[in-house]
């Protein structure tokens, strides 16, 4: 009798929503997915919460064509896209990238040569060994967080999402040459940050 009951609830949840079970069933997977996309866990949490709340509002439109999980995942993906679109368009107008002052002058002199104090130093510490790898990853995350907005966004999409550069350019409405200018600058900043926080001590 009990087995039968359970069977019917499963059947029912295939075609209709069961929000009371959402957190238990899907929160971990949604959160994991969000983390892989935004790399800031607090932000990932907000995105998942928004997903549940939007899901509640849109419940009537759920037809059961896809599984509940697929449906929630689709909502989450849209939230993530919105999350990346907002800062790219509002906080970082393109003229801040192409402005006259050269943001790379911190690294290179007017002839385009490395400034002595910023020139790459030899990395002597071996990252590959276990404990150090863990510590390195921690510093890498911290340095990623320090990058300015657009650089961080591009880096996350390029490496954490393995997104094609053409798609990134399209989504963020930037030209390929701006893309490379931003990636180049972000890499220089990231490398300098790693060197300062990891390899120098």
């Amino acid at each position, binding site marked *: 009798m009990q087995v039968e009951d359970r069977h019917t609830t499963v059947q029912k949840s295939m075609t209709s929503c069961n929000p009371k079970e959402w*957190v*238990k069933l899907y929160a971990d997977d949604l959160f994991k997915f969000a*983390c892989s996309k935004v790399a800031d866990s607090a932000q990932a949490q907000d995105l998942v919460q928004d997903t549940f709340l939007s899901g509640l509002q849109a419940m009537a439109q759920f037809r059961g064509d896809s599984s509940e999980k697929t449906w929630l995942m689709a909502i989450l993906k849209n939230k993530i896209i919105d999350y990346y679109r907002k800062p790219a368009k509002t906080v970082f107008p393109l003229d801040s990238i192409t402005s006259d002052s050269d943001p790379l002058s911190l690294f*290179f002199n007017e002839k*385009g040569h490395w400034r002595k104090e910023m020139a790459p130093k030899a990395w002597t510490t071996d990252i590959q060994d276990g404990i150090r790898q863990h510590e390195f990853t921690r510093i*890498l995350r911290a340095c990623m967080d320090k990058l300015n907005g657009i650089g961080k966004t591009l*880096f996350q999409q390029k490496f954490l999402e393995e997104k094609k550069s053409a798609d990134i350019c399209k989504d963020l409405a930037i030209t390929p040459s701006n893309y490379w200018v931003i990636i*180049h600058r972000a890499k220089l900043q990231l490398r300098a940050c790693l060197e300062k926080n990891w390899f120098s001590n």
Partner: protein
Amino acid sequence: MGHHLHTLLPCCKEATLLAEKQLQQPLPLLQRIGLQFHLLYCFFCRRYVKQSRIIDQQLRALQASEGPALEESVKLQWEEKIAAALKK
């Protein structure tokens, strides 16, 4: 980018940009020659290219490594929020 821009004689600023592109896609022949030539005599950029590649590998590994787990208290909060919304 300035007057020193010359495909076959890139400065460090240009060479590091070319190197960044090359990590993702093949460069056109002239740019590739320019970069290789620069790296022949530029010790710092050789080092930079090597380190830049390590950074890329580590960033890719970041994705593979597991993210932080969701706390139970957060889940409880969510469940309460959903229950409250359902009552309305």
